[in-house]
């Protein structure tokens, strides 16, 4: 019998519907995988009861002859940035240790309404700040992948959704939620050989998702393949009156609209994404991707996004600025950590609580953000960065006159070893160079696995689309997937 944990979302859904296997069997299979994978440190909280309850509900509904919900019988992992009612939620930070939300985030509520169950809360970079999952207060997540050259160095699963990428790649769950502020879905997906999509800003409600940088944060799915991403994204998306930036638009039937036929589509290749020192293998994969899309019927055009080089600096001003304000609420007064030294006053309590509760990377970004918003620096940094953001968005708008979608590499390297870049924030930030521009412009973008590098590690290709054109992005992703034939998976060593 097939191992049910080798199945993705669509296969599980269809199998449960057809009665090929029960939802409980599926849940139990993944629960067993989770419990055996402590070495990966992907889960902060395990919630087998949640997954089993949803599975039993699916089985009961089937037994009663009811129409099954879209995700009936599908257990998933939830990034710990989503508040889950009654389940500890920390954003992988000590400052929220012990916090149990009395409410359910809109995205998770949408998923439960669609019949999904939760296997647990997934580790991540603290407050989603990081590209390697090394900033979690609860330990690194280890990528299931190892270099094929015999080097056994533990590798980064990417970040900030590193628990999500590892959990999906290691078959601990068929799919997981991620959030993407500057690449936090796409880069970890690329590092672990899975797919992930960040939808148009506003598709997924931010209500109940712990904020990092509000104008950039978007939730999205991470899964084995493009179809699974489409299924999950349909369930996660939708207008929410509780989020003033939510898009009041119907959710398209993305799964039904999937087609790898790109006839009539023009794919832009932005010349500014050919950065210095990019590994030849990534350049080669990019060219391979171009050929695949041509093969799928697309026309390839070169485009220019002239302000690309300013995107990363602008992002590392805007995101920390918003974060410095968003994270002010963690003050020890109402929830989470409170550090009240003997005889301390209010200011002392703030200082002690925040000094102990936040990790170094969070503190670094709070300080950067505070600095760029300060009197005397605001115009030079924040105003300037906001202007750059407008110019980046305009670059894309002008590109859309020439093409429908853009193809780029997802990240400038394959997974690096844990510890390799953690001492050098700038080197770490450079990981986001290809993902940040589309985040600044609020565009839908996805990463799909394209192949392996010389060390046997996955590399991803990124598709960027026009606002609201998730369908175009998914279809191009599917075309790549069909041609890449990516079947490599990490050997279980954990």
């Amino acid at each position, binding site marked *: 019998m097939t191992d049910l944990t080798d199945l993705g979302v669509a296969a599980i859904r269809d199998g449960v519907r057809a009665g090929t296997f029960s939802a409980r069997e599926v849940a139990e299979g993944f629960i067993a995988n989770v419990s055996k994978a402590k070495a990966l440190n992907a889960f902060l909280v395990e919630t087998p009861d949640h997954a089993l309850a949803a599975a039993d509900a699916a089985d009961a509904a089937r037994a009663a002859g009811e129409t099954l919900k879209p995700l009936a019988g599908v257990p998933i992992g939830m990034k710990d940035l*989503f*508040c889950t009612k009654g389940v500890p*939620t920390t*954003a992988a930070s000590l400052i*929220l240790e012990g*916090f149990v*939300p*009395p*409410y359910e*985030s809109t995205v998770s509520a949408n998923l439960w309404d669609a019949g999904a169950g939760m296997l647990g809360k997934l580790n991540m970079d603290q407050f989603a700040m990081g590209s390697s999952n090394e900033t979690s207060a609860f330990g690194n997540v280890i990528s299931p992948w190892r270099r094929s050259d015999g080097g056994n160095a533990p590798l980064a699963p990417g970040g900030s959704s590193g628990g999500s990428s590892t959990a999906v790649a290691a078959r601990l769950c068929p799919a997981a939620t991620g959030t993407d502020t500057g690449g936090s879905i796409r880069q970890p997906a690329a590092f672990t050989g899975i797919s992930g999509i960040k939808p148009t800003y506003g598709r997924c409600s*931010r*209500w*109940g*998702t*712990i*904020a990092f*940088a*509000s*104008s950039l944060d978007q939730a999205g799915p991470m899964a084995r393949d493009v179809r699974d991403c489409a299924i999950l994204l349909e369930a996660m998306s939708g207008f929410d*009156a*509780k*989020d*003033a*930036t939510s898009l009041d638009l119907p959710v398209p039937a993305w799964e039904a609209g999937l087609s790898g036929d790109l006839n009539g589509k023009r794919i832009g290749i932005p010349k500014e994404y050919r950065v210095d020192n990019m590994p030849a293998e990534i350049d080669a994969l990019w060219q391979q991707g171009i050929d695949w899309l041509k093969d799928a019927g697309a026309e390839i055009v070169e485009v220019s996004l002239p302000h690309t080089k300013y995107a990363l600096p602008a992002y590392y001003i805007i995101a920390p*600025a*918003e974060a*410095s*304000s968003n*994270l*002010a*609420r963690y*003050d020890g*007064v*109402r*929830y989470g950590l409170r550090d009240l030294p003997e005889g301390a006053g*209010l*200011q002392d309590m*703030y200082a002690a609580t925040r000094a102990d509760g936040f990790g170094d990377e969070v503190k670094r970004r709070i300080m950067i953000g*505070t600095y760029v*918003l*300060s*009197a005397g620096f*605001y115009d030079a940094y*924040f105003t300037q960065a906001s202007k750059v953001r407008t110019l980046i968005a305009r670059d894309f708008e002008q590109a859309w006159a020439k093409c429908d979608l853009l193809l780029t590499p997802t990240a400038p390297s394959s997974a690096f070893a844990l510890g390799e870049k953690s001492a050098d924030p700038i080197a770490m930030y450079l990981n986001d160079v290809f993902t940040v521009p589309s985040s600044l412009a609020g565009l839908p973008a996805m990463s799909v696995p394209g192949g392996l590098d010389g060390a046997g590690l996955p590399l991803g290709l990124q598709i960027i689309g026009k606002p609201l054109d998730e369908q175009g992005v998914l279809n191009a992703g599917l075309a790549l997937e069909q041609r890449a034939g990516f079947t490599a998976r990490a050997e279980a060593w954990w």
Partner: protein
Amino acid sequence: MTDTKYTIRGETGDWEVVVGLEVHAQVTSNAKLFSGAATAFGAEPNTQVSLVDAAMPGMLPVPNRECIRQAVRTGMAIDAQINRWSRFDRKNYFYADLPQGYQISQLYHPIVGEGAIDISLDDKNPDAAGKRIGVERIHVEQDAGKLMHDQHPTRSYVDLNRSGVALMEIVSKPDMASPAEAGAYLRKLRSILRYVGSCDGNMEEGSMRADVNVSVRKAGDELGTRTETKNVNSVRFVMAVVEQEAKRQIDVLESGGRIVQETRLYDPDRNETRSMRSKEDAHDYRYFPDPDLLPLELDDAFLEECRASLPELPDTKRRRYEALGITPYAAAVMTAEVEAARWFDALLDTGVAPVAAANWTTSELFGALNRTGRDIENSPVSPDQAAELLGLIADGTLSGTLAKQVFEIMLETGQGAAEIVEERGLKQTSDTGEIERVIAEVMAANEDKVADYRGGKDKLFGFFVGQTMKAMGGKANPGVVNDVLKKMLG
């Protein structure tokens, strides 16, 4: 307006005072600015707090349309520029009454731009003693919570009921030059807000409070350095702050000191202001656009609805009353408070004669309300009941004296005027036969006085009128009594 400018005499000469007010007015709305929590005053602590107000992780603000509407209507009422595009900014600082660690406000792009408020320094002649005070802007922002330091020896308590309640900050230009002008401005602003219904103007409950900016200068000099006295909560205190702060500044300057730009507090018990913090330790608020909120864009339909829903405003109403022949004073008195104006409009709607109605309302009704300590909302006499009484005066059924008596009975019993007249026989008589009979009796009883009158003592006429009225229990028509007396006394 009097030409004598308000100045304060110092040792080195006369000083002018320059005043600007920043008024925080709580927007009348059932829900807070960015959350659905209720806003009722006086609720148990922390019972009107949503997850958003408590700044729980992942919670988001959503603008309350009604609060925006009230701010726009207020702007329209002071003839201000309404900004179709405005934006919310975060003002960042840490304090226990501010759960988010920032206040959502509007620094860079307020919803309302420049406008003006006309004040009057002379109730008797409002138009002649007017002055136009510029309004710089109105923006909407969140209120903070409330800290209580007196509940426990070592702890402070925080009540978040007020956290997130919508405020309008109405910023005047430094156009006021005396305590009286500052007082008149605040009263007029309060009146307008209450007409519009955008703020209940209740200063005791903190629905309206003012930050008072004061500086002094010699005539013709540049503006002096100003101080800002925070959270002053009555018209009287605002006027006192202007006076005390100006005097203090003059003392400092004349003894060779310098005014520091600082925030001060007013102590009503000592009638003095005290330094709270100077500009040096002022916060850097790190304002920036709130990324949780999209810019506010107002469309034509919304603006049209706001405009259409504006009531007649105090100045327009006053001029309308004046055009009906009502004295400027009475018109000003009746339009100062929206409830009185509404009551009087209802009275006018019954078709009574405006001038008589105004005179009766300002003297009789207001007098009675004053005497009994009631406000017009709780007036024991409705506009319809007043119209009935005025009708009986107009058609001669009641004399002025009788009308007063009937009104007293109305106040006591709540009965209608006609019913009282009927039941108690208080009707005025114009029956000449009856009047002639009584006059004859009065003349018979006072033969000496009749002789004196006929001998040229004209002044005794009043005596006969009084005697006749008294004998008839005040019910005789005074005009008829006069005519008959003249005839009979010859």
